[in-house]
């Protein structure tokens, strides 16, 4: 419970940025982002730095979106994807600049999905966000990430 206040303050700021940047996704991303932070925040207590920056939008079932990321060898990264749509399922996977799977771990659970990577080289990576199934025509999603210094 201790983390709730800063998490919501932070979420509110990021949500507003997302809403203003992508008006079409307005109805979708707010709760999705809160859920993404909800998944990520416990890791802050374990030494992970959860970034304030966030990405979001909405996708139809079966659709994918690419988020390009500059990652550095020597760090560990984790990406948290969430939706506000009940019974929707998502996945997030990380590929290198050539399109080869590069993550060390990924999982899906309910409205959450997660992927982790310890990059083997510094450079461009592709975080692929996918709505695998959903009862809604459009499904809001939000992605946050964290990195570990040690």
């Amino acid at each position, binding site marked *: 419970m201790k983390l709730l206040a800063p998490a919501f303050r*932070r979420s509110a*700021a*990021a949500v*507003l*940025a997302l809403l*203003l*940047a992508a008006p079409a996704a307005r109805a979708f991303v707010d709760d999705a982002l809160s859920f993404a932070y909800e998944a990520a925040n416990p890791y802050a207590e374990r*030494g992970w*730095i*959860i*970034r*304030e*920056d966030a*990405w979001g939008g909405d996708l139809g079932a079966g659709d*994918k*979106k*690419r*988020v*390009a*990321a*500059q*990652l*550095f*060898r*020597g*760090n560990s990264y984790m990406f948290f994807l969430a939706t506000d749509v009940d*019974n929707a399922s998502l*996945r997030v*996977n990380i*590929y290198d600049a*050539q*399109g*080869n*799977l590069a*993550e060390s771990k*990924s*999982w*899906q*659970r*309910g409205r959450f999905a*997660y992927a982790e990577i310890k990059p083997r*080289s*510094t*450079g*461009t990576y*592709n*975080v*692929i966000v996918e709505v*695998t199934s959903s009862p809604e025509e459009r499904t809001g999603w939000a992605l946050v*990430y964290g*990195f570990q*210094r*040690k």
Partner: protein
Amino acid sequence: MIPRLLFVLLLGLSPAVAQKPDKSIDLGQFPADTVENVVVPVPSEIFAVLDKLGNPNWRAQLGPEKSYPASPNRAQVALLLGTVIADGFVAVEAEDSERVKEIGRNVLTLAEAINVRKSVVARSNSIIQKADARQWNAVRREFDGALQDVNKAMIELNDEQLAQLVSLGGWLRGTEVLTSIVKEKYSRDRAELLYQPLLVDYFSGQLDRMSPRLRGQPLVGEIRRSLGRIGPLIKKSPPDGITPETVAEINDLSVQMVDLIRAKAGRP
């Protein structure tokens, strides 16, 4: 219906589901509009790796010990604000609480000049408090948050392009610090951190798409030209591409750009 119910039940029973992802994908299937979905790292992501590769002299990388005045030129202030926030990350690495506090106050001064003071007051105060308590991870998060708050406030004011200049200023100052440290004690591992083709393309693309009014400003024009020279150097493939000479070249260009941004502080 039954399979769906079964699936939901299974989800409830299983803590996590690992679906096997494709081993490779065709990146050509993603349209060019996704270029805006780019993860721009904060300086501390790079600094964290540098720390692991040795003990950089962070104090030597601190910027001039001064607070920069705002100028009436908003593009210059935006670029300067980015460099000052990046200075904050350096001061955190150096664990210099006085400098962090001074930078926190400077962020407020510059934010005021571009009408986003209100959005960063709480951050600035928090930076000062947490620097006093030497809670360095918390200070890192606050600088990251200050960047996002400025970004958000500028988008609200329809000044998205100024927000892009803040990010660019931060990246330039981060690149100056990184190249300076790598130059001091070169290794392939350290030089590899400079391999950031995505970011060079991202920032160059933003400058190319800026309004003619902003692009026409001498400072922005100069940075656009210099970024065009940095691009091919940074895009050299590691580990062999980024040589000590290349690092020195990128360092020269980034020092020139940051100096130019600082030199315009307080001037119209």
